[in-house]
């Protein structure tokens, strides 16, 4: 039968020669390959001491942003939750009382805001949907591993940006979403 490709090999039942039957040359050859790998550059790194650089458009752990004055930006409009394809986000809204103007930006705020990290697929659609630039997926933080299902639901205690970080310029991503930053980066690099 004619072969379809020229890569097929004929198998023969020819007897092995003495050298082949000793297997020694094959063992030495195999060891050679192993020893060669000792001198090659390692493909692994010593995590967590060493960390690989992450892309600026990486979609990691969510953060609920505060504005320049430290007020929570989220108004519990529910657009992130309706955009979420995994239905990972739930929230309960509440009305801002008198005297809470320094805590919440708008008249309505999220009293409860929960993301189920088991459901979340880190697609970033919540970030795209947010009209108040309140939710972002951080490019430098990953969702940590967890050992119990109750740990997986992230509430406001773990999502809201800490007050210490609001003054640093780095924390404000100038209202750009991940895809905006991606487009920005691609344009800067001239690769598109």
């Amino acid at each position: 039968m004619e072969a379809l490709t020229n890569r097929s090999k004929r198998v023969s039942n020819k007897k092995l020669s003495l050298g082949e039957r000793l297997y020694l040359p094959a063992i030495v050859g195999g060891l050679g390959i192993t020893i060669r790998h000792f001198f090659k550059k390692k493909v692994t790194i010593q995590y967590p001491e060493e960390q690989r650089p992450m892309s600026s458009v990486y979609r990691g752990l969510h953060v609920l942003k505060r504005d320049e004055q430290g007020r929570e930006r989220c108004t519990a409009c529910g657009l992130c939750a309706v955009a979420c394809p995994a239905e990972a986000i739930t929230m309960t809204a509440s009305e801002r009382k008198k005297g809470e103007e320094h805590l919440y930006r708008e008249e309505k705020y999220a009293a409860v805001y929960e993301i189920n990290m088991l459901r979340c697929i880190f697609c970033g659609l919540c970030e795209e949907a947010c009209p108040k630039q309140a939710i972002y997926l951080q490019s430098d933080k990953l969702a940590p591993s967890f050992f119990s299902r109750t740990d997986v639901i992230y509430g406001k205690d773990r999502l809201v940006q800490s007050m210490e970080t609001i003054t640093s310029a780095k924390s404000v991503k100038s209202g750009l979403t991940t895809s905006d930053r991606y487009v920005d980066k691609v344009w800067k690099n001239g690769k598109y």
Partner: protein
Amino acid sequence: MLKVTIDGQTIEVPEGTTILQAARMLGPEVAPPAMCYYSTLETSGGYCRTCIVKVTKGSEKDPRPMPKPVASCRTMVMDGMEVQNKTSPELLEARKGVVEFLLANHPLDCPVCDQAGECHLQDLSFEHGAESTRYEFERRTFEKIDIGPNVQLHMTRCILCYRCVKVADQLTPGRSHGVLNRGDASEISTYIEKSIDNEFSGNVIDVCPVGALTDKTFRFKNRVWFTKPMDAHRECDKCSGKVALWFKGADVLRVTGRKDAFGEVEEFICNTCRFEKKDAADWKIEGPRVIDHKSVISSNHYLANNQVPDFAFREVADYKAIEDKPVQPVPAQNQLNN
């Protein structure tokens, strides 16, 4: 009977029908949007200008076109009239201008507003408006006033459609609120901040096309699109008792009238039904309400067998018929392209 052609579709209507009514008879796809006209409220319409249409042929006797767009809610049909709505690009451009005027003083607080998701102005600006605003000035704001325990008034969001005033005039025995001041400064208010307390006053919430009058008992409770609408009724000595209940889980968050394809309630309901009966046990539940599949309220809700509810030409109340109907294949244009 008079013959009228709207966007190429011809219909015969009785004398005294307005162009808007004739267009609505043809279906919501043809009907121009309306923000102030409300079919069940007399003398409503003529303020907002969103329902403008182009009359390309006046009538059989006088075929001259009308010189400028006319408000279809106030213009009567003539025999042989030809009307352009969505087929006229210049009319759509004119309507875009109308929407821009309506939005000039409207605050963009949709994330906070309870009406978002079922707001007619939101739908209108999505379908007919421009993408961004050119308005650079300070928007009109008002002092907040309390008009009672049930209805929340946000005067900043008001587009002065006067629908609520017509409700107060025609539905309730004693009118307690109206429009104060004139022109740019006009505002909906109660006389000397007297609270609205008559039995049908809650209907101002349903007729308000924007979030200017909202339900205080539902304020910030939930977003409309996370609640599940169900048709229900109860024995009521004041009204028909036919309502839509908006559930979240087993809780009734809100009670409203049943709105049809044009966003108008079929029957006005009383305040007892609207504000006081927030327990599912008070109601006889008929079944889930069919919402237009384009609406955000129906997002993430799917029917069995990928059916698309044929909302447009169906009586809103008889969802039962849809359930009993054998499953029909989905028309090709409704199927998703893979």
